[in-house]
């Protein structure tokens, strides 16, 4: 069998309905489109032969990706231009192949390299009864930080109820969210507990390494409490924190009974070394 000597890096956008694909589903869709494209992809040897590829960091379900990465190994060199055309002909709406480049076949895998992820989200923030319901995803350091600040949920709720009278900046939902975020950043890490079936999973993320640019908020004119949020994360071999999870953790750390709904989420991912090369 021919050697797998050429490593083609595809940069693609995943938008529209395809935002709802899970990481595994997306990988399968990419594999199938590469097969349809007719490119001479390499196949692994052994027990269960499959296409040799390396996907970039997982994109959370529901998130659009504008610059996502996927490496596939080829057995023959195909010029970038015709390769791009072949992939574009074979693709599906919502999966746009933006560019292809060849990278060093011996470079570390995409999952092992650091990838810079630019996120932009649209959120809806409000006071509400759902604060409790959204809490279970995020506690740990966040909750401790909250306890340290001495504000119980009950007290905060009262403060919220009183907000109508003493309308001050200190009770603005955005202010409270930012306050929670500041507490998280102070501790430098966030611990997420998640229920997987019956098992509880705990994972601690290092925010000093994982958060390149802290969330910044821009009020939207469309509705009260709606914001565009931008943040830059860095994913590494241990994975990365999801932006919605980070915001919810901040919410929990704020100790205020707030509601947070993610209306949309978009990401642009780039391998760090490329970023360095480009600048």
């Amino acid at each position, binding site marked *: 069998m021919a050697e797998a000597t050429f490593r083609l890096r595809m940069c693609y956008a995943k938008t529209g*309905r395809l935002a709802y*694909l899970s990481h*595994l589903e997306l990988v*399968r869709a990419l594999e*199938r489109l590469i*097969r*349809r494209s007719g490119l001479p992809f390499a*196949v692994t040897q052994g027990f269960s032969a499959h296409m040799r590829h390396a996907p970039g960091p997982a994109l959370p379900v529901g998130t659009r990706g504008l610059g996502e990465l996927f490496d596939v190994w080829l057995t023959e060199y195909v010029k970038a231009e015709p390769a791009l055309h072949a992939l574009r002909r074979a693709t599906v709406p919502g999966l746009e192949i933006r560019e292809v480049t060849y990278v060093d076949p011996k470079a570390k895998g995409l999952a092992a390299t650091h990838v810079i992820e630019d996120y932009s989200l649209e959120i809806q923030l409000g006071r509400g009864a759902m604060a409790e319901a959204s809490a279970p995803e995020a506690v740990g350091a966040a909750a401790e930080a909250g306890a340290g600040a001495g504000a119980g949920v009950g007290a905060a709720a009262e403060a919220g109820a009183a907000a109508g009278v003493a309308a001050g900046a200190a009770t603005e939902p955005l202010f409270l969210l930012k306050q929670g975020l500041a507490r998280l950043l102070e501790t430098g890490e966030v611990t997420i507990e998640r229920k997987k079936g019956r098992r509880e999973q705990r994972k601690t993320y290092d925010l000093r390494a994982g958060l390149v640019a802290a969330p910044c908020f821009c009020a939207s004119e469309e509705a009260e409490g709606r914001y565009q949020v931008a943040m830059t994360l860095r994913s590494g071999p241990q994975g990365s924190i999801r932006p919605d999870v980070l915001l919810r953790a901040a919410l929990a750390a704020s100790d205020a009974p707030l509601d947070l709904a993610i209306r949309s989420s978009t990401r642009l991912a780039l391998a760090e070394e490329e970023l360095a090369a480009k600048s």
Partner: protein
Amino acid sequence: MSRPSLWERIEPLLSSVERPSRYIGHEHNAAPAVEDGYHAALLYPDTYEIGQANQAIAVLYDAIGRLAGCSAERAFLPWVDLAHLMREQHIPLFSLESFAPLATFELLGITLPHELAATNILEALDLAGIPLRSAERAGLRPLVIGGGPCASNPEPFAAFFDAIALGEGEELIGEIIAAHRACIERDATRAELLEALAGIPGVYVPSLYRFDHETGALLPSVRGIPRRLEKRILADFEHWPVITRAIVPYAEVAHDRFTVEVLRGCARGCRFCQAGMATRPVRERRVDTIVAAVAEGLACTGFDEVSLTSLSTTDHSGIEELLRRLNRMLEGSGVGVSLPSQRLDAFGVEMAQLVAGEKKAGLTFAPEAGTQRMRDVINKNVSEQDVLDALTRAFRAGWRRCKLYFMIGLPGERDEDVLGIVSLANRAYAAAKDAVPERQRGNVRMSLSVAVFVPKAQTPFQWCGQTPMAELERRIGLLRTAGLHKGIDLRWHDPTSSRIEAVLARAGREGSKLIEAAFRRGAHFDAWTEIFDGELWEDAARSLGLSLADAAERSFEPGSPLPWRHIFMGVEEAWLLEEHTRAMEEKTTEDCTLASCSDCGCCAALGTANDLAGERHG
């Protein structure tokens, strides 16, 4: 009729439901809907994962897409989380191509895959906002048509359908649509539409047949429609285009691969098997046709696995040549070939070996009965030696796992037959271990699955009642205590749901009331063990003064009018009765693709014959 898209209303719900990708549609090769024209929706009454790869839906989708001015769209049942949200927000059931409400289609075709899907059919109609009963619907559309395996006894479904299609739909669907369009064009009445449909061979319009108390039969209530309804078959299966532009799902689904139907029908004649009886005669696609279809299909789908499907793929006369050619063609591409199940002899294993390569996942064998006597009763023409030879060969070749399928509660079953399952399994296990090098014996895995026999219409066992529940439980107890080797993993089917299958498989029109009553009590997804609740059915039956036990266990007198007597699925009642007698005499009947014709009546009545690509390997 203008067809709004519901996507804008569904999308906001997707972030709060499990596995949203099953609701997004727009998969590669999904066909866009025609703008103006005839819109048909094809619904599989279960989730996307279960139904997307269904071949009946795929075949009709393709066939409708070939008709001028027509398009087909798919629909599935949403899982309970989304169904709940849809009801809360008054969003009706939609298609996956244009997200149009099902009620806005000209035609709604629903597959009848098995008895336990009955309440899901009502769930789908209810979610779609379409009246459950045909009699409650008005106008010309949507025309609600059923078809599929359960059409062998359509009576329990009769009330819910405007018409039921019998047999294979490739050609029939075009005729139904043409008649429907003509009625729409001339603004016919609903009664005229139903009569027009009833005039098409293979179309059963239940509302035009009435129960005749004198003869106990269902008779036409209008002139000019047939007394006996004969199924349709695609006689020239070989020349009907193979579906190569198959839909490529995003979500992970059952049978997520490219599929070629290599042959249709099975004439082995197992006496419990409705599929084998109702799909005669046997028609094989030629090896060249199949190889070309695989090449084209893989190129335009990108799947990495191809499945050669049928009821008995390794019976194909050209199977060996086919597998060798596919192996050559697919070498180095990472594409695997799969066979749905294994023929129980050395040849079957040899064929499995041809496609397995390095990856020897597991083999599936279905001896069905534990003693030779019982296998003769059910006409499963395999001997214990065949089973042991096949296993020895498989484990020598490198397989380490296998599943054995059996049934209990078969007509005439004795305790020795039940115990025979255990002793056959033990001998099979020993043979498997013997065939494996000593240090690898610890890796040998065998599981034993035992299902409960369900008597089905249009089979030689259609007259037999199901074994009573308490007795089934006793026999399961026998299985568990008969000294099965500890290394074998025993699983058995819950007799409660098999009982409901038995009731519906042989019910008359009263079955519709039972299904509706169970649905009203909340029964749905009955084939999902985690959701199934037998109490809902018991309660439904009580409310109607019925007993599920009596209905399942009742035996019909030979010659008495069976509820499905007006339906002809290819085998004559006289022949079935003969087979029934031979079963009780423990006499077997040969496969007509290997030996002589046993005169089941199919070829004569339908003016057709077996169409084989060559000589079969007996």
